[in-house]
């Protein structure tokens, strides 16, 4: 059983990073949050567009995504920054994060007396929380505690031929250690859902998988749109992918071969170990943000075209099967399995390379996205703005 060094949280959760997270409840608080994180080293924020003029399922999705990100085990403490008049209640949000036992504080810009005073107060609070977090000792954790999200983006034909099967091999290794894997992208299993459904542990799980795909496809029908206007994307098409079905069949191999233990909603907490499907869009940032909110420790992200995507709270490991792109975008890439397509690396060897990278990144090695400060964040939206 492999081990790594990480952080034990008050509720028993284990993290592989020790972030202080500053959460704006609403777009109006973004700038104050950005200034606070500039003032306090090793502090991250998740600016977003939402938190106001939202009702029902959308309001709840924003709330759950923010709360889940705050609860992520890579986060040690949280400062919630509110404007004061938005629909996401900052005190309810703080309570929803505080259940983990981590320190959570709230700052209200209107109560503080404006941006300048809020930045000053927020910086003081953040400095205090950061100093506490810096005292945390790294402790030995088991690899079985690790939950990894698998994602692909900026795909080309090499994704389905090389990087996704290689990532699937690494995913099987983590499952064999007793860990967890989460795959998402409902859009990008269209045409391949029957293969995943056949692997569900129970008929109920299989039904739910078919249901979320049907729900998505009906929504596309209701809009009267041809999905090909956006997916496959222009880059996917230039890279040789012709249809969503072809893209999906290449996508699914990235989650390995384990049975599915369940299908969860976007940003819903992952209930256990083993393999789960999260109902989520193919959109890279929305999907990775949903995975972070669901509690994954890191994401393995395959790409053929090349993308810099990162996250404020979870490391994102970039893997490519396109050796030509690797040469061009080495700044953004962590693992190159391009030699698979030249016949000089087999899927086992490529899987081992990714597995080693997962272990090293979980143990503290920074990903290219972390080094470059890529912290994209976006909440999946359901309905209209009011």
């Amino acid at each position, binding site marked *: 059983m492999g081990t790594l060094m990480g952080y034990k949280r008050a509720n028993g959760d284990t993290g592989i990073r020790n972030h202080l997270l500053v959460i704006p409840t609403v777009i109006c608080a973004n700038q104050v949050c950005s200034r606070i994180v500039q003032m306090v080293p090793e502090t991250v924020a998740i600016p977003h567009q939402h938190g106001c003029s939202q009702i029902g399922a959308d309001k709840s999705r924003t709330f759950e995504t923010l709360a889940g990100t705050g609860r992520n085990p890579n986060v040690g403490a949280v400062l919630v920054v509110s404007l004061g008049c938005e629909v996401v209640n900052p005190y309810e949000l703080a309570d929803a994060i505080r259940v983990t036992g981590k320190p959570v504080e709230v700052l209200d810009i209107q109560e503080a007396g404006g941006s300048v005073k809020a930045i000053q107060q927020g910086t003081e609070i953040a400095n205090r929380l950061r100093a506490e977090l810096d005292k945390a000792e790294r402790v030995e954790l088991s690899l079985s505690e690790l939950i990894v999200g698998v994602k692909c983006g900026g795909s*080309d*034909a*090499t994704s*389905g*031929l*090389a990087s996704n*099967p290689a990532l699937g091999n690494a995913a099987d290794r983590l499952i064999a250690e007793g860990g967890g894997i989460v795959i998402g992208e409902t*859009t990008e299993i*269209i*045409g*391949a859902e029957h*293969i995943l459904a056949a692997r569900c542990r129970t008929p109920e799980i299989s039904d739910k998988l078919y249901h979320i795909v049907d729900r998505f*496809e009906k929504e*596309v*029908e*209701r*809009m*009267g*749109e*041809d*999905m*090909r206007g956006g*997916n496959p994307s222009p880059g996917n*098409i230039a*890279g*040789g992918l*012709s*249809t*969503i*079905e*072809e893209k999906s*069949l*290449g996508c699914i*191999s990235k989650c390995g071969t384990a049975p599915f233990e369940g299908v969860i909603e976007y940003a819903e907490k992952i209930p256990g170990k083993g393999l789960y499907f999260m109902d989520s869009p193919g959109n890279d940032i929305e999907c990775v943000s949903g995975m972070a909110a669901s509690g994954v420790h890191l994401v393995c992200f395959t790409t*053929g075209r090349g993308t810099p995507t990162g996250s404020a709270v979870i490391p994102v490991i970039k893997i490519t099967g*396109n050796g*030509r792109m690797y040469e061009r975008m080495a700044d953004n890439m962590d693992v190159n399995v391009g030699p*698979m*397509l*030249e*016949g*000089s690396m*087999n*899927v086992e060897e490529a899987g081992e390379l990714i597995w080693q990278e997962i272990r090293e990144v979980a143990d503290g090695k920074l990903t290219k996205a972390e080094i470059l400060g890529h912290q994209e964040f976006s909440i999946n939206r359901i309905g209209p703005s009011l």
Partner: protein
Amino acid sequence: MAETIKSGSDVIVMDVKDHVATALKDLAEGQTFYCRIQDEVKPFTAADPIPFGHKVAIVEIRSGQDVLKYGEVIGRATTDIQVGRHVHVHNLEGIRGRGDQAGK
């Protein structure tokens, strides 16, 4: 699952049932390329330029026919496609996610 790729392969076929192979290097129009299906290696001639990562027909495909890659349906041919032709969005269309065809 990906077939093990032999060093120097021109194209890869993912499943014995497939109608298309994927180019592992740029193929020029008129170029002979070799395609391994299970243990058999057969020569083909590219009738179009086939860029790296793009598909080439390895069997005759009829207009309206389902096209297979990974042993599964990846869409439908919109014209007859001869062996050696480039198979892409100009002669292959997705069947799923087609809200534009809803109710038709």
